[in-house]
């Protein structure tokens, strides 16, 4: 039996609700995007229902502590197809057992989710570290990113608290939405880029006059801080994987 849901968090939670309503035995959860009909397997399309989803979420909140609710949410943001199924099975397991069952790391879904959440948290942390703002001519600090997972919801507060006195935009180029902080609150935005524009680092003419100076100083600093006698490229690449180099001012040529 396969359950098919629309890929939203509410859809996923509704699927859990539907399972308990029907108790169909062993079920796989797949998103519409990933689903391919099989010849001999039955399937059931879950229709997302906010009220059902809320009931399941409230149930999870009763069963799980904050750290596991966060792991749940992070795993969902990973957008990994298998993670959806793990979340589904995990929820069923949690509801079927006494509270505290989430620390049974012997269960496949629990260890899978804790690993998945860890990858998402790592990506979130990397974004907090590797985002480089560029100051544009109108005083807004801009950064374009394309993270492995959908981490914008997770990093929003960090940047809001930290850069409270400057306007900033962080734009997810892969998922085509971004965050804009307007000195009071963070809002979700979409930008329609002109064709051919460099979304990662816009042309220097659009930039603040001081931008080039500080970018150069930062590159200089990065070079000066290196101790040549201790060169260790392997370690360097391990900490700053090459896919992130495009963000980094200090890695620009």
């Amino acid at each position, binding site marked *: 039996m396969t359950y098919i849901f629309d890929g939203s968090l509410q859809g996923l939670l509704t699927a859990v609700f539907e399972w308990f309503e029907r108790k169909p035995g062993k079920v796989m959860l797949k998103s519409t995007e990933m689903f391919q009909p099989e010849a001999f397997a039955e399937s059931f399309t879950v229709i997302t229902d906010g009220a059902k989803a809320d009931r399941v979420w409230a149930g999870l909140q009763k069963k799980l502590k904050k750290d596991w609710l966060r792991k749940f949410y992070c795993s969902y943001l990973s957008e990994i197809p298998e993670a959806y199924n793990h979340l589904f099975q995990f929820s069923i397991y949690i509801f079927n057992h006494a509270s505290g069952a989430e620390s049974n*790391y012997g269960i496949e879904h629990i*260890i899978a989710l804790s690993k998945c959440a860890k990858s998402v948290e790592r990506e979130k942390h990397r974004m907090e570290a590797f985002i*480089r703002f560029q100051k544009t001519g109108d005083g807004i600090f801009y950064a374009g990113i394309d993270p492995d997972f959908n981490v914008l919801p997770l990093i929003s507060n960090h940047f809001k608290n930290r850069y*409270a006195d400057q306007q900033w935009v962080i734009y997810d180029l892969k998922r085509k939405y971004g965050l804009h902080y307007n000195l009071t609150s963070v809002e979700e935005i979409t930008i329609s880029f002109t064709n051919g524009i460099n979304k990662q680092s816009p042309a220097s003419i659009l930039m603040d006059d001081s931008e080039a100076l500080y970018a150069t100083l930062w590159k200089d600093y*990065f070079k000066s801080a290196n101790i040549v006698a*201790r060169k260790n490229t*392997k*370690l360097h690449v391990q900490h700053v994987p090459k896919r992130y180099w495009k963000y980094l001012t200090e890695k620009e040529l």
Partner: protein
Amino acid sequence: MFDRIREKLNILADAAKYDVSCSSSGGTRKNDSKGLGDSHSSGICHTYTEDGRCVSLLKILLTNHCIYDCLFCVSRKSNDIKRAAFTVDEVVELTMNFYRRNYIEGLFLSSGIFKNADFTMERLLLVVKKLRLEQNYNGYIHLKTIPGASDELIKEAGLYADRMSINLEMPTEAGLKLLAPEKNHADVIKPLDFVQKQISQFSADKKLIKHIPKFVPAGQSTQMVIGATPESDKDIMYTANAFYKNFSLRRIYYSGYVPISNDTRMPIMGTQPPLLRENRLYQTDWLMRFYGFKVQEILNDANPNLDIDIDPKLSWAIRNMQHFPVDINTADYKMILRVPGIGVMSAKKIVQARKFGKLRIDQLRKIGIAYNKAKHFIVCSDSPYQLKDYQGTQIKAFILAESKSKYLKTDSNQMILF
């Protein structure tokens, strides 16, 4: 103007890079004032240099003019290098603009000693006060305490800095005397002790009075240079242990000496820095702080130096085979933590998971332990029955045979023939 600031930054960042303290953790400053900066309790490494070290702070000297002539230091008086000095405003501008672009987590400010200790400390204080009071900056500040500066200045600086540090430089007094005759450990101990007493005073007051200013919330750290003088690992770690105990230091950094001088008392120019030894010392440091090991268990008169080919935890285990094998399903958390190949996170998961049933090998692997290493020291519910009792040395041979050291290429003890 543009070129001058570039030149200054190059000189003063270059001079500061041998101070390895990089951490930006432990800060508790919140951005309540809608200013700039909010600390992240575990710190953030914003980038890594090509030598693999993290860059989280803008690490600079205020000036590299110095009245001292310490042999191990690039900024020593007798060294023929370019000198420069930042103005207070330049440091403030650099910090603010780097921080705004998310380049850095904060400022690490040190300085050569010009004129005298108080004069230098006053200048450092000017910078941090300007950042905190005028610029409304709440990012991280790591400030060097200048040995010999007056208590009033140090105390005032502590109100604005997140972390303060003074470097021990050499692990023993004798080593320090050899390379820096003008300095001694007592000069370092006095301000370390003073700041520590202030920290405990402030935290004691905090219990009584709610609104009390922060005082060095991220604590103190120090650094020792390794391999410039002939101390043993035991000397180094015993000193480290004493400083952790006596001054509640948050971190001690071990900095492999990078040859910068032709003086005959020190390793010659071109010698490889002792990277592997540095790594083993950090491993020992971690075992002391997070794994419940006593320094005497790892280093003692019988074993004054750490093994180069295996890590100190494994090395302790094969010297103490009487404690093994450990039964994963029944043993104490503390004992599981001592098994080579099991770290803190895995040990915690094991202790939680075994409440639900006996753990098997495949589960242990999934939990994330280094099973190939750990298997010699543990039993779990489906461990194969073993007739033979292996000696520690045999186990070491097994483990070495199937592992490949990442240091083989840079191993400085190995001569290259061709």
